[in-house]
């Protein structure tokens, strides 16, 4: 029997286990993506609610469940980004930080805060890919499947984004 058919027939996901395993990944994707815990919780909840409604349409032969779920998370993130009005444009944020304002001093209190500020300055595509890799813990192949980019393209974009962060560190 074809392997994918055997898996379809033989095993049905334990949805409680799936939720426990995937919740931190989705939550951290949003934290890396938007940086705000309240938003991250709200967007995580929306992602799971959409996924749970559609779970019986999930096809194991097409993608791993985590990839399928993070694809939904990306769509939720895109919808949210379109509704958002950034309070400070990215260019202005960089200018303010460079002046050594209180914002820069607060960020410098910890490496994590500093990293969060640098992530916020990245272009959207780069920030999204880093959120999938370092927030959700996806490898480049899974990121490629979730985004439609080629695996080599993902690797290149991630590498350049990390180099950008290093340069600004």
């Amino acid at each position, binding site marked *: 029997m074809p392997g994918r058919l055997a898996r*379809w*027939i033989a095993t*049905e996901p334990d949805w409680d286990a799936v939720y426990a395993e995937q*919740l*931190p990944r989705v939550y951290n994707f949003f934290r890396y993506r938007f940086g705000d815990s309240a938003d991250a919780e709200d967007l995580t909840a929306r992602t799971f609610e959409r996924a749970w409604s559609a779970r019986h349409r999930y096809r194991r032969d097409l993608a791993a469940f985590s990839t399928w779920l993070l694809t939904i998370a990306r769509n939720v993130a895109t919808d949210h980004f379109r509704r958002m009005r950034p309070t400070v444009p990215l260019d202005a944020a960089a200018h303010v930080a460079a002046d050594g304002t209180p914002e820069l001093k607060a960020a410098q209190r910890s*490496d994590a805060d500093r990293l969060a500020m640098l992530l916020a300055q990245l272009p959207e595509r780069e920030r999204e890919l880093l959120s999938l890799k370092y927030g959700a813990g996806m490898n480049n192949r899974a990121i490629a499947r979730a985004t439609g980019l080629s695996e080599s393209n993902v690797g290149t974009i991630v590498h350049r984004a990390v180099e950008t962060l290093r340069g600004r560190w």
Partner: protein
Amino acid sequence: MSMNDDLLYSLQRSPDPAFARTLGDRLHARASAERSRLAWPGRRSLFAIAAAIIVAVAFAFPAVRASAESFLALFRVTRVIGVRLADRNVAGMVQPQLDLPHLIDQHVQTILDPGPPIDLLSVGDASSAAGYTVAQPTIVPDGALLDRIRMQGPRAVRVIVDVDPINEALRALGIRDVELPRELDGGIGFIRTRAIVALTYQYRKTQLTLFQTPMPEMTMPAGVDLARLGEIALRIAGLSANDARQMAQRMDWRSTLLVPVPPAATSFRQVDIDGREGVLVESKAHAPYRSLVLWPGRDRVFALEGPMESTALLQMAQSIR
């Protein structure tokens, strides 16, 4: 600290436990609301669904029925496979315009009625009444006591193939790539089952029950296209056209019992009981959780159902002699 992968991962945090719990409860409530609409079927409705599949997997007959020779095809089930019923297909089966119970009543005629179940005083009495030695588990959960022994007598039905309503039913379910061929129309088959014995154990204020019955017997002419009929059954269950065709062609339909798993089931998986393949179905929608395992023995089919986690259930199943 320099920029390295450890630092890049350092922004990860665990979700707040209260948030995780609240969201989890909400998802459970949503799933329960869905399941109350497509509830975990009682045994009657589960058998009705299986009967619909049997009707749809009616018997293929050669075009020249007059010269067809009947032979007794004893189906020796050596494996039980679970197939998840798709939500949309179960919803389709209960739509009023399909009227599945009427379809079954019209085309499945009872020749031998089993009568109501009867209670028996001992396993020995049940063996005498059933006409076969009743098997029992040698390992039961602590505190479980054999509380009731029931038997339902043998049953025989005649199945008459009426192609048009069956094909209409397939279309009502959105299945347009397969249908029963015209030459099957009017074909007749027979299914005979022997007595079913149920041993019920009282366990933790509820019951767990072991069912057993020898393999069913079916009569049909030579040249039955079981793979074709199996493909239709799998399409009814919800497989895609391509997957149903592939699986139907690879499966030995004379030795495989296909069991429809309702959407309300939390999970199901194939299990090995004494070297034979069965299916374990679990329902965790409401406490106490319930599990059901179906598997073929050497000369009969078993089903064990109860309010216990799968390890204990499987241990009990493995101990049946």
